[in-house]
């Protein structure tokens, strides 16, 4: 399902990919960039806030804005103003931002939010894709919550869990008020992103399957019934006092012969018969 939200219409207006140092979201970001390049003729604006210009894909459709140049206004060169770039945009343009966190460092939370709100609502660009590094945020500022409020599709890259593929937790706001919250697995196949629903096991079925295995009295009793190998061995070696001892058996003592009475009450049944042991 996540794949269709990403690649099929209606296209999401504002996609946020939340990642951490250990769970990198860059491959998904790069995939979306590649996908947009192949599929549409729209102009793509790449806001370079963190990465290296050399690593940006070279394509006539992509305009790279290097916002790192003279970011602190120490140089005599003209500083690129992000708001000015934004104002020159058109409705069909697509915007990629390689780090929202760096953007916030540079321009402030309120200003960055205003900028993206302007891009999304006022100019109404076709799509915004932004990478947000969670390690760089202070939870006090509620940055993730605030940007989730603006975004239409927010993805969080999560580590692998009992599977070879990584996971994405996402939340998608559809028009008409529906909100979809899911966790899916993702992997890349021939350079394409594939997502797969995680089959959730029905707890009721699990219970039914699990409830009738071989009945083991060990699990049911509150005390220990069985013996370990070592205990069993030591038990077998124990000589009980009433047992005939080897050295005395030939020399002394007698034997007990039990003679049945006429109406003797001998119980041949095993007293532990009903235990199923």
């Amino acid at each position, binding site marked *: 399902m996540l794949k269709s939200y990403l690649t099929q219409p209606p296209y999401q207006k504002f996609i946020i990919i939340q990642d951490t140092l250990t769970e990198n979201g860059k491959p998904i970001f790069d995939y979306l960039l590649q996908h947009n390049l192949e599929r549409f003729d729209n102009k793509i604006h790449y806001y370079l806030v963190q990465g290296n210009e050399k690593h940006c894909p070279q394509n006539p459709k992509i305009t790279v804005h290097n916002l790192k140049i003279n970011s602190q206004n120490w140089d005599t060169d003209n500083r690129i103003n992000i708001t000015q770039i934004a104002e020159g945009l058109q409705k069909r343009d697509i915007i990629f931002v390689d780090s929202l966190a760096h953007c916030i460092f540079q321009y*402030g*939370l*309120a*200003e960055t*939010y*205003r900028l993206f*709100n302007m891009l999304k*609502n*006022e100019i109404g660009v076709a799509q915004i894709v932004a990478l947000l590094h969670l390690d760089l945020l202070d939870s*006090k*500022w*509620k940055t993730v*919550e*605030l*940007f989730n*409020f*603006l975004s239409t599709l927010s993805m969080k890259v999560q580590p692998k869990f009992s599977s070879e593929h990584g996971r994405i937790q996402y*939340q998608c*706001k559809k028009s*008409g*008020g*529906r*909100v*979809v*919250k899911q966790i899916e697995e993702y992997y890349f196949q021939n350079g394409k992103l594939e997502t797969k629903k995680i089959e959730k096991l029905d707890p009721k079925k699990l219970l039914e399957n699990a*409830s*009738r295995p071989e*009945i083991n*009295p060990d699990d*049911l*009793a509150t005390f220990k019934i069985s013996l370990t190998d070592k205990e069993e061995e030591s038990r077998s070696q124990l000589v009980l006092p009433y047992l005939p001892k080897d050295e005395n058996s030939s020399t002394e003592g007698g034997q007990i012969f039990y003679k049945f009475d006429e109406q003797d009450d001998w119980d041949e049944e095993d007293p532990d018969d*009903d*235990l*199923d042991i």
Partner: protein
Amino acid sequence: MDKNIHHHIPGSQFSTHNGQLVISSGIQTLDSLLGNGIPIGTVVLIEEDFHGCYSKVLLKYFLAEGIVSTHSTFIASQDVNPYHIIKELPAVIESDPEVGDSAVSKTSNNDKLQIAFRYQNLPSYDSDYGPKENKDFGHIYDLSKTIDVSDIENSDICCWTGLRIENGTKTYSNPAYNELLKSIKNKIKEGKFFLKDNPEKRSMLRIGIHSLGSPMWLPHRKSLQSIDGTRDLDKFIFCLRALVRSAYAVAMVTVPTHLYHEMSLERCIHSSDIALRLQAFSGTELENNQSLNEYHGFFYLTKLAAVNSLVSKHPGPVEYVFKLRRKRFSIEILHLPPDIQDDNKETGKKHGNKAVHSMGCSGANSHPLDF
């Protein structure tokens, strides 16, 4: 107050409960919930749902009702262009679009479910459309149609976008709040809505503020305060209420309260007169709940201030739900369906569990440790 003057204000009536002049919210069920309507001079706070779309519908109803009743409108939003909200207002229609449908479903229900003849002809308690007291009060809207452009042009509408903001106030960490208050005050002054004013034709001002306190209202970088750190929001609502109290005006404010800490939220509720909360089911566990699948969310009436009276008309612990259909938004009392099917399952499950887990001396033969 002289009642004769009020009679001339279109779209308003006197509440039968406390004699307070009220206006319609545009949704008739909501009006009856609030005690005939929204009292003038009050602030209605709406806690937005996560997506923010249902609260927007409430705001649209409120504003559309104002335009139909020839009230003046003041609309503010920083997140979206307020003019877009005006353009998307629902169109007024003569009769309810879905009343026919529900009548059909009612008859089919009657075939299935026989109720005692004594109760058959009684009106149902939460029926949406009771007898109308005032023809002029409250209208029916069709959400699938939008309002006529000529209606918008002929109305007195004032939009505030927060684009031109001057610095130079220390009351708020974001000067936009101050600017908005000033604009509202000017609007009330220009339109002669103050109680002390004596215009030729008395009218009403409806103030709609969309997504107040959203991240667009964040304090500026220099103030170094987080969204919860400032008192801007509750201070603003407090001042707004003071302003509205002394005028023929009603304000409806939607706030994305899920972004705020509970404490900030309580302050806001304290400063408002009526507080509503919309909690949508979508994206939560409640989405798959069988007994709630007809509805879109819970509707909470958090606060209903007793205006002009000692007794609040708050209905007490009743649970309300809302649903947004293609043409109409409705609020109903939540009735849980009869619990017949589940009951069987439940007992079956209990028996099943007993067979597996009980460990008493119950004498069930299958158990290996029974004696």
